[in-house]
């Protein structure tokens, strides 16, 4: 037991969790914490909007696998975090959010919780449905334990954001603090071993399968199960399709990789999953963007579903073999029960079919390039970036083009807002990823509409020396919405025209960053080359046609066989 103020205890508890960086913005109700921060070893990265602090923490977590921490003051500071927290929740990302709060008590009953004090917001009430757990500290002495608990809950099981709300008077209150290593939560079980009988049943199905297929989601990345997935897929000769969240968990230059499945999945992935007789779905929650119309999804296939969150099993898709368990352990267990009974094949009709479908697409891809088409830009970008470079995306056409045409080879190298679909996520997430992995190239594949939503954090990237590259696929449109209006609303464009503003080169320069506008593929390559060597953030403005659509596409409400190839 040591006596110290709450704010100091918070810093010490964070250091004990090995926190090296915090993304945040200071304010009235969190002043004591920011004062204690000056005496700690933790680096604070001053963002320009709290939403970006949360996204940066999220990007940090996804790139590194370590929890990301963001911090804000009470009221608007806290509510500005909300989009970022919701985003982390939907994509199961371990983000710790710390918010200041008005006093729990004050002698004159003003500036106190429940009195609608200045900058008071019920952030616990607001974030309850979008956090894995949240807690308002009641006594300063609880701080060490709550921090420990927050990190434990956020990073174990199915990860997710945890928010700690810390009233101002507790930050200054001197109290006896106990830093324990032990933690027990009776309502929470973090490790789940797959049931051996279910594993055996899954193995039996896979053994008999003629056309097995893997659908891999973000859970494979979270549990670092890529090696296990690769081993099992190769043993089964099963093509591997990923969800958007799973992209990168299986090398996309592998003969068995067929890319993403779903609304803007590849043609081969959508065709193959419908032809499969056994689908091994791992670490995916069968989002509507993945499955299309539910009752047409893999109707005749047997589905094995592995997920660590039992509530995901049977939530959207009825499955034949549910397995509650960690992806890594479960894939390993399935492999073990198969490896002595299944001989690795060199070829089979199913594998030939996979190659045939993949070949068709290759043939189509190699023609018709030359101008500034998203596909050729992203293909070139892939060639220029190292294998371990991290790509983030915004949301909309830029994201779907990136998913389709930018091949990811390693887990944690493709970071995108999958569940919430947050425009403005990619740039701050790139900053977070760069802080987590300073030695890697980090590129945000952006659209003009998305980038404008969080571009003010060019300031933090310059001030904090976090150089990333932003590639703005600039069609002067809210492109994906325009595409839907073009296809489904008879080209009646409503509120999608963004005009030719701003001048992104000047915008970048106004912040002390570097900007290029490119007019050809060779200029694009030149700009990317310069960006990769630059010590400041680079914005590459790439004008593209505003009529360019993302294809293939499955119209909303349709099944996967309703795919429009374009």
């Amino acid at each position: 037991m040591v006596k110290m103020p709450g704010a100091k205890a918070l810093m010490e508890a964070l250091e004990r969790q090995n926190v090296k960086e915090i993304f945040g913005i200071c304010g009235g109700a969190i002043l004591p914490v920011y004062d204690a921060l000056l005496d700690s070893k933790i680096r604070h990265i001053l963002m320009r909007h709290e939403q970006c602090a949360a996204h940066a923490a999220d990007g940090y977590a996804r790139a590194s696998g370590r929890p990301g921490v963001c911090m804000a003051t009470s009221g608007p500071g806290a509510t500005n975090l909300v989009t970022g927290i919701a985003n982390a929740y939907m994509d199961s990302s371990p983000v710790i959010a710390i918010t200041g709060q008005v006093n729990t008590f004050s002698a004159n009953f003003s500036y106190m919780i429940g009195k609608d004090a200045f900058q008071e917001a019920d952030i616990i009430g607001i974030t309850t449905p979008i956090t894995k757990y949240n807690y308002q500290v009641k006594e300063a002495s609880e701080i060490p334990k709550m921090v420990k608990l927050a990190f434990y809950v956020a990073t174990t099981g199915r990860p997710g954001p945890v928010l700690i709300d810390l009233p101002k008077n507790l930050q200054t209150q001197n109290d006896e603090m106990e830093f324990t290593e032990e933690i027990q939560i009776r309502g929470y079980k973090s490790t789940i071993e797959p049931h051996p009988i279910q594993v055996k049943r899954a193995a039996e199905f896979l053994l008999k399968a003629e056309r097995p297929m893997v659908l891999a989601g973000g859970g494979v990345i979270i549990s670092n199960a890529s090696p296990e997935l690769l081993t099992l897929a190769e043993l089964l000769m099963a093509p591997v399709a990923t969800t958007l969240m799973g992209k990168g968990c299986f090398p996309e230059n592998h003969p068995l990789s067929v890319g993403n499945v779903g609304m803007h999945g590849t043609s081969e992935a959508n065709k193959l999953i419908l032809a499969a007789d056994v689908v091994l779905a791992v670490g995916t929650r069968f989002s509507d963007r993945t499955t299309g119309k539910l009752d047409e999804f893999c109707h005749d296939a047997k589905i094995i579903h592995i997920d660590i969150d039992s509530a995901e099993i049977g939530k959207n898709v009825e499955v034949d073999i549910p397995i509650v368990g960690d992806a890594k352990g479960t894939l390993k267990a399935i492999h073990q029960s198969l490896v002595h009974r299944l001989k690795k094949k060199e070829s089979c009709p199913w594998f030939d079919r996979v190659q045939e479908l993949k070949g068709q697409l290759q043939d189509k891809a190699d023609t018709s390039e030359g101008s500034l088409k998203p596909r050729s830009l992203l293909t070139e970008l892939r060639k220029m970036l190292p294998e371990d470079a991290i790509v983030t995306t915004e949301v909309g056409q830029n994201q779907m083009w990136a998913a389709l045409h930018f091949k990811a080879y390693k887990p944690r190298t493709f970071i995108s807002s999958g569940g919430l679909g947050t425009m403005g996520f990619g740039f701050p997430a790139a900053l977070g990823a760069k802080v987590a992995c300073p030695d890697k190239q980090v590129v945000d594949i952006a659209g003009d509409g998305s980038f404008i939503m969080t571009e003010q954090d060019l300031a933090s990237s310059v001030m904090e020396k976090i150089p990333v590259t932003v590639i703005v696929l600039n069609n002067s449109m809210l492109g994906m919405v325009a595409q839907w209006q073009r296809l489904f609303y008879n080209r009646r464009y409503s509120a999608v025209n963004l005009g030719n503003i701003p001048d992104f080169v000047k915008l970048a320069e106004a912040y002390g960053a570097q900007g290029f506008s490119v007019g050809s593929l060779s200029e694009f390559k030149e700009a990317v080359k310069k960006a990769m060597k630059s010590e400041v953030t680079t914005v590459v403005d790439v004008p593209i046609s505003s009529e360019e659509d993302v294809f293939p596409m499955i119209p909303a409400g349709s099944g996967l066989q309703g795919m429009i190839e374009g």
Partner: protein
Amino acid sequence: MIAMMKEQTHIIAAIVEHKPGVLYKVSNMFRRRGFNIESISVGPTEQRDLARMTITVNGDQKIIEQVIKQLSKLIDVIKVSKLDPDNIVTREMALVKVHTSDARAKSDVINYANIFRARVVDVSPESLMVEITGDPDKIDAFINLMKPFGVKEVARTGITALSRGAKSVKIEE
């Protein structure tokens, strides 16, 4: 594969942390996921830091399964059990204020109350208040009987329930 599944009422017992905000987290989960709470009753348990929630929910098997999983997922919820309707004691309590304009109405209401093993707990010149305990059907039946007299106000607790026998929904200390 999906047969038409029957909607019916299920009773769920949840042992939760007895601290502020937990009821909000539970009710908020129901609202956000689109599950309907028919009734909920909450009270402390024999262990001081635990509370017991008895929740009745309408839905088919699939919905109930999701309700239980989503409830169990909440960190402040420690244990969730679906009570077996064939092996359970359920009770609800209601206070019913009935308009009784004359002595005859009063004596009728008192007679009905006696038949239902209910008790009169308050009397005024123009009304009687009756306390009745039983399963919800019994309370419905009593309230229906009171309607012709004029039901002025009803307060019902919602169902609370325990399974029969020695087995218990309990947390080891």
